[in-house]
């Protein structure tokens, strides 16, 4: 009872802080200095129509590398943590057969979803979307497959290979930026191309392809580890 009261009191206290934040908030009419710079120069400097992509992949490319690392870490931790039970402890659970609708739909939908995912990350510099979004869509296709066939073992080798190669490529492209252009992760190692076309914005599409593949592989890995673990008693 005392604890409940304390919790309410604390929520009220946090509410006070939040209220202060709310009071400090003002709806804006103009861009911030940083936003204004990107709006004015982003398209010309980076060549990406989608300014968010320009910020994410180039201006704040190091953050994106960090993001990729986080997913990578999570995937590694999951497959490490969920795999180290003793072999003799593991017993397979008896599973209900999947419904027909699901299994047939998954066969139809999986390739389409994959394609959508690829489309999203290839066009990341032009339209809303990008590597993370595309990768997540691809992983959702894998998830659908797993739901349809719970016993399906995803080949860790292939996923691991895709993940490693795309991750390494990302790093190498980033490092090329130091050699060929202005700094780590500079996208101007390739020609900026014609603004608004698929082959524009320098290395951004390339980076996003690798990010998309990597994220897709990592998320699939996560989903796979969890599903594998769930099948055990």
């Amino acid at each position: 009872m005392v604890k409940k009261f304390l919790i309410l009191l604390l929520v009220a206290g946090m509410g006070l802080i939040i209220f202060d934040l709310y009071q400090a908030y003002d709806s804006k009419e103009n861009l911030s200095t940083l936003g204004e710079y990107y709006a004015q120069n982003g398209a010309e400097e980076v060549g990406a129509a989608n300014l968010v992509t320009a910020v994410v992949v180039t201006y704040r490319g190091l953050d994106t590398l960090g993001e990729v690392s986080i997913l990578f870490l999570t995937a590694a931790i999951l497959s490490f943590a969920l795999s180290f039970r003793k072999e003799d402890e593991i017993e397979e659970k008896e599973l209900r057969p999947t419904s027909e609708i699901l299994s047939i739909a998954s066969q139809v939908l999986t390739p389409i979803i994959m394609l959508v995912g690829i489309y999203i990350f290839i066009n990341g510099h032009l339209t809303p979307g990008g590597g993370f979004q595309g990768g997540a869509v691809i992983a959702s296709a894998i998830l659908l497959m797993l739901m349809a066939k719970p016993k399906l073992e995803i080949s860790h080798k292939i996923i691991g290979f895709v993940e490693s190669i795309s991750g390494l490529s990302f790093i190498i492209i980033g490092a090329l930026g130091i050699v060929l252009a202005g700094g780590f992760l500079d996208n101007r190692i390739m020609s900026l191309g014609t603004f608004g076309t698929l082959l524009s914005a320098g290395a951004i599409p390339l980076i996003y392809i690798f990010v998309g593949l990597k994220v897709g592989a990592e998320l699939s890995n996560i989903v796979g580890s969890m599903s594998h673990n769930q099948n055990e008693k």
Partner: protein
Amino acid sequence: MVGPIYIIAIALGLAFAMGLFGKALKGITGALLMLGLAAMTFISGQWLWAFLTDSVTTTQIFTAGFKPPYSINLQMGMEEAILTFIINVAGLLGATYMYQTFSKKGEQLKMIFLVFIMSMNVTVMTRDMFNLFVFLEIESIALAGLVLMSNTGKAFQAGMKYLIATGIISGLLLLGIIFAYSFTGTLNIDDMIGAHLGTIKASSVAVFLILVAFILELKPFPANGWGLDVYTAAHPGIGALVSATVASAGVYVLYKVMPIAGQEWYYYVSLIGALTFVGSNLMGTRQNTPNRLLGYSSIGQVGLLMIILGLQDYLGDKTAFIAFGILISHYAAKAGLFWISGILKANDIKDWAALRKNPFLLFLFGTFLFALIGFPPFPSFFAKWELIMTLSTQGQLVWIAVILVGSFIEGIYLFRWLGYALKLDHSELPSLNITWNKMIPIWVMGMSLYVLGVYVTPMVEFGRYINYIPLLFILVMFALDFLPVYIKNTLSIGGVVWYMIDLWPRIEDDLMRQIFAVIFLGGAVITLAAGYSKKGTRKGFYPMALLMFAGLVGIIEASSMIDFFFSWELMTAGSYFLIIRGKRSMPHAYSYILFSIAGAYAILMGFGLAYGSNLDAGLTALGNISFLPTLAYSLLAVGFMTKTASLGLHIWLPGAHGEAESDVSPMVSAILLKAGVFGLMLLFLFIGTDNPNATKLLYVLGWVGALTTLVGNMSAAFQEDAKRLLAYSSIAQLGYVLFGLAIMTHMGWMASFTYTINHFMFKSILFLVIGGIVVKLGTHNMFEMGGMIKKMPFSFIAVLISIIVIGGIPPLSGFAGKWLFYNAIIEKGWYFQGAIIFFAGIIAFLYLYKLIHSVFLGQLKDNHRNMTEISWWILGPVYVLIIGIMIFSAFPQYVLQPIGEMLNPYFNTEIVSWEGTKAFTKLGYWDGTTIMIVVGTAFVLLLGWLISLSRKAQKVKQFNIVYAAERPFRPETTHVSYNIYAGYKKALGFLVAPGITNFWNTVSDMVLDIAGWLRRIYSGSIQNYTLHVIVFIVVFYLITIGGL
């Protein structure tokens, strides 16, 4: 030079690449991991080297080819270079340490580890707020993954708590960052600093969220249960990194973002730091689980660093030196301790006694503990010194007190731990199985502490005068520790003699220092010579004895306060290790070191006040303290009195001296105590006569001295343990010295000098002889001795002569002391204290009689029939001292006259004038030589007469008596001098009731009770820990912005 950005590229590239190698190529991933960490270490190392050689200036690294604030930039400056270097070194060593674990548990762990180390590098280097957030998240996710390595329920719980707590913290941080962005339109830290967010009311809440998040990342008390659990449950190899690198990076990050908040907020950082430092250490006093204890200590050290960061306005350009000194010591020591813990796998610090099975590990363990406390020659010592001195110049006495109290509390548990490791029984404990890859990292950390200590020494004012040659010699003796005693003994004596010869010209015209040099180094030779009687190798004895002597001689050589304090601490450390060698010495050595640390901190604070008054670290600064002089003098006096064991501060002495080894007792009694006397003399000379700020203090000290004498002598009279009797006698003798000094007249000081010299000689003799007898008879109890006069006649004569000196009976030099004393008392007019002293003098006869009677006279015990004289290795030095006493008694003028001349300039009171062998005062004269001749002649005549008479005496065999049909069942009941003074005890015993011991026991119980009560907040419940975090945030908010 390779750019720092490659640290990221290499780490991530290798981590990604590891996925390419399957389980079949496990060896490759291990090699890649080591290679990667080595490359990262190399990159930061070469930058560090470049900064140290001044060949490069702070460099900005732009990413993406755009300038900040439009893109993320990293900064590589001196500070970043140091931090990334130590992070990467710890990573490399940590990976070496966990090599087997890593190869057992698969390549994912190696990837996580690489990313973990990389993320800390970036948090240190980045100058972008959001980037900082991202890599902090990487760090905590990687850490949560590494915690899983232990695969125990406890680790899962700890990790879960950690995730929830950091989740809340990072959420609030994110809110703070986005609002800071909304106000400033930038994410660059430097631009944010320029915007002065903290001073504007609307934006101050954003500042608050950022600041509180980074503070919470450092696990402030009391919102740190989640952090403690990680320390406890994680693999020790991970605990080492959390403590060494995560904490270091976290402190630096806080340092980096603090300017965003502005100086108005610094005070709160210090406040939280103080709460953490004291609170965390306090709760550590009740902790017995090694890893959790290390956790408490780590959090405490981070608290200290927070204090320092918060006080940076006061510390000015010394902030970096101080913070890095503390940080590096903490870093190396904690990493080492966690790694040792991983080898021992003990659940209780008592099981660390197993360390004695590997002397190297024990040595490193001691190194780490002393580095944590801040003993020389480690960097933390110099950092703490600078911290206290600088704070004092700013008048921040409260902060000094907080820091010293917290440090002392840390000492409480660290030295308890060291005592356990050194003394507890380890026969039941499993032997250690140490692979080289676990040993190397610990060695590297231990050695780097020494190297860094020496490296930073010249950075401190007067530091370059500190003499490291004795320490080098001690290091050599450590290396030669496997040799037998007689070789090491010879080497040690040789070293001491050589140093004496080297030292003499430097103190040629300073009689006071010469006298103490003779006491310290001459005493060293004499007591070491007695060590020839020992057999075997006496592991660890010689380095520690030499350490103590090096400290002692350093004190007299010191020309600056830091040199003095440096030596003082060396002496304390050495003597601690000597004292704890005794069989039952653990608790006594423990109380010795606690009193010593407390005393040292009092001295430190006193020095601080002196420094604050003069901005000069020379020893002469003590002569001109304008800033709170009375407090400074009192602190210094109390500090020195912990060594002279004056009343109230004496409870460590009887046990420490009584239980010490037979040749250690004279070292720590006859010699070590004089360090306190030297300190007091130095202090009083600087105070000078008629100093209005010290009149009351001196008066009180006079009383303390008189009462110490009384209590010491009475306690001695009631002892049944021969060595404790001598120990109490030392307390009393030092009481005389203190009293004489406090009188502050020429005569009083003459008396004190005489007592000092006498005590050195007769207490050496007594402890050597009695110590030898105790070893021979196998008992300390006097009622189990008796009749030794015929078995050990030379010992008897030695003890007899000493007793005559203590008793102040003509013709020996004790009388000179007494004669001067009463002159001084009468001149000063302290009659009441004088009466006590006089009364105490009479009591002295009681214990002296008891000593000589119980041991040498009376009946020989049945089991001692075949006893022979004690070793000549002991008697040799003893008789050298007896010759000394005889010379001093017969020709006191050769010593006392120069002392008088030396004292003349300091005192304008009546002096002792000399005419040949006669010493004149207003009250009369005394002639040592004549008395010696007269009494000597009378003695010889009487002895001759007695011997001639004794020929007619009838000899009676010991058992030629009749027991009245009664058989004694306890040995003490038949011993005539057992409880011989029962009557006096009944009448006056209340005076020696263990009131003071009880007082200190109550204090320590109270501290432990508070700690036990406080730590109940760590109930283990996830919910509670979450509540702590939120309470911390809300309270901090209400105090700062809410204006509570």
